């Protein structure tokens, strides 16, 4: 159970370095984001959307990009056959912490790209409170990463990895997505940021609860 910082950061650095060398996940994710946003743009075809629908689209793209990218962390270890080595080298908590850090970094970059592309391509999409908007996107990303990291660890042990991931993630992520959409609406259309306080509290407590539970349960998932 012991959480050691050194192996966790080593694992994080190893993941970042190997990702930067191969750029497999990054390229795939970037292409996924470009494709899904262009599908949105084709369907919109120059019409001005209501902000509610644009926010819905934004969260759909964010959710499914995360679904296509987040599962790689553990599946890759399983495919390369490095799981056993990791089990020997570090405690489960350190492994989880390292993977969680990597997923957090990945999803923050991913969400930043998605939102910037959305802002560039949807000209009429005006945000009344940019600070709150970016905070919600950041917290939403953290929430998605915290819940999907342990689910990625679960599905790495199962047979049908790709399709199983969104199926298992969606019900767990629903409270987060609903609170996130509601807070984003406040940020885009609202006049005061106080209206988003309950949603922000919910986002933060969701992240805390899920990460704590994951730390407690990761032992059982990780050890064969």
């Amino acid at each position: 159970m012991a959480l050691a910082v050194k192996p966790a950061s080593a694992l994080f650095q190893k993941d970042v370095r190997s990702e930067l060398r191969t750029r497999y996940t990054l390229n795939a994710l970037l292409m996924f984001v470009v494709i899904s946003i262009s599908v949105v743009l084709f369907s919109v075809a120059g019409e001005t959307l209501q902000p509610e629908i644009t926010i819905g689209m934004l969260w759909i793209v964010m959710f499914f990009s995360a679904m296509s990218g987040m599962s790689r962390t553990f599946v890759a270890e399983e495919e390369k056959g490095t799981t056993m080595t990791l089990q020997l080298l570090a405690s489960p908590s350190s492994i989880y912490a390292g993977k969680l850090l990597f997923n957090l970094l990945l999803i923050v970059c991913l969400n930043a790209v998605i939102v910037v592309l959305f802002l560039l391509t949807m000209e009429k999409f005006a945000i009344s409170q940019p600070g709150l908007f970016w905070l919600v996107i950041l917290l939403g990303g953290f929430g998605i990463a915290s819940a999907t990291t342990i689910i990625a660890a679960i599905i790495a042990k199962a047979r049908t990895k790709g399709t199983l991931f969104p199926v298992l993630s969606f019900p767990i992520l629903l409270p987060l997505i609903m609170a996130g959409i509601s807070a984003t609406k406040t940020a885009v259309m609202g006049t005061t940021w106080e209206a988003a306080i309950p949603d922000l509290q919910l986002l933060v407590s969701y992240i805390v609860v899920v990460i704590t539970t994951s730390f407690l349960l990761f032992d059982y998932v990780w050890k064969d």
Partner: protein
Amino acid sequence: MIKWWKIVLFVWIGVFSALGIMTPIAGGLSDLAIFAEVGDTRLIPVAMKIADHDLTEQEDGTFLVAGEDKYGDDAMFVLPEKPAGFSEAEGYLLDARYDKENHRVVAAEILGDYPGWSFPYIPGLGERAKIIFFHVPMSWMTVIAFLVSMWFGIKYLRKKNLIDDAKSAYAAGLGLLFCILATVTGSVWAQFNWGTFWNWDPRETSIFVLLLIYGAYFTLRSAIEVDEKRARLSAVYSILAFVTVPFFIFIMPRILPGLHPGSADDVNAGPVVSSGGMDAGMRVILYSMLLGCIVLFGWLMSIQMRVFRITQKQEADDIAAAEAIS
């Protein structure tokens, strides 16, 4: 041999279902007044007790009689015809409305004799209020089964005994059954009461999320072949789902406005939780049905566990027989 408690269970659920369905709904003068106040001329069932066995025939062929409603409020009642056996009758169940100008309860039809035992009339629901005896216990069982499933999941993670995993899976299976029943009964009811099969009311969202979680749980189980691994991972998943789901089941339906009782725009926390929100007779039947459902759940679990043990023993015997031959 049939055990006695199984017969008791059948009788228990049968009697309380029958009581729930057959008991007439009867309102009083206050219910009539609510509709008369806004000029609504709809007919509602009203229980009338005859105060004075003296019928006065009026010009239009109707009969006037003094009586009181089930709560003891006095009024003059207008009956459409002279009922047979009037002198001996205690009272009647009428389909009536309130005539504000003449201060009379005008009955369009005599539905039956005075009901000694009846449920109150709930504006906007009427007979449809009776769904509470079936739909609410089913919805509760959905959550209770989920809790039981997670409980045995935790027990498996602690003791590593595959029987606990089987119990966890069977509890989830029964939970899925109750979940589907609750969704279907609620949806059909919503079509008749709220006009659409599905409204995305917070409670409808919560049962939908439970359906998704049960679905995901069984998808996960079917994707793993090794027994121990399947038991471990599905237990972890059910715990993970259980820490995020209370938000949907217990919190969201109460903080958001919705169609179900107990929503944020409702007068109280709903008929089940708040005191005095529900008629005593209805409350007794609801809790009896819930108790019946819990015992039924336990019985179904024990049947499935027996099948599980017999199958395991059969497999062990087969292996032993195969080894004996070789």
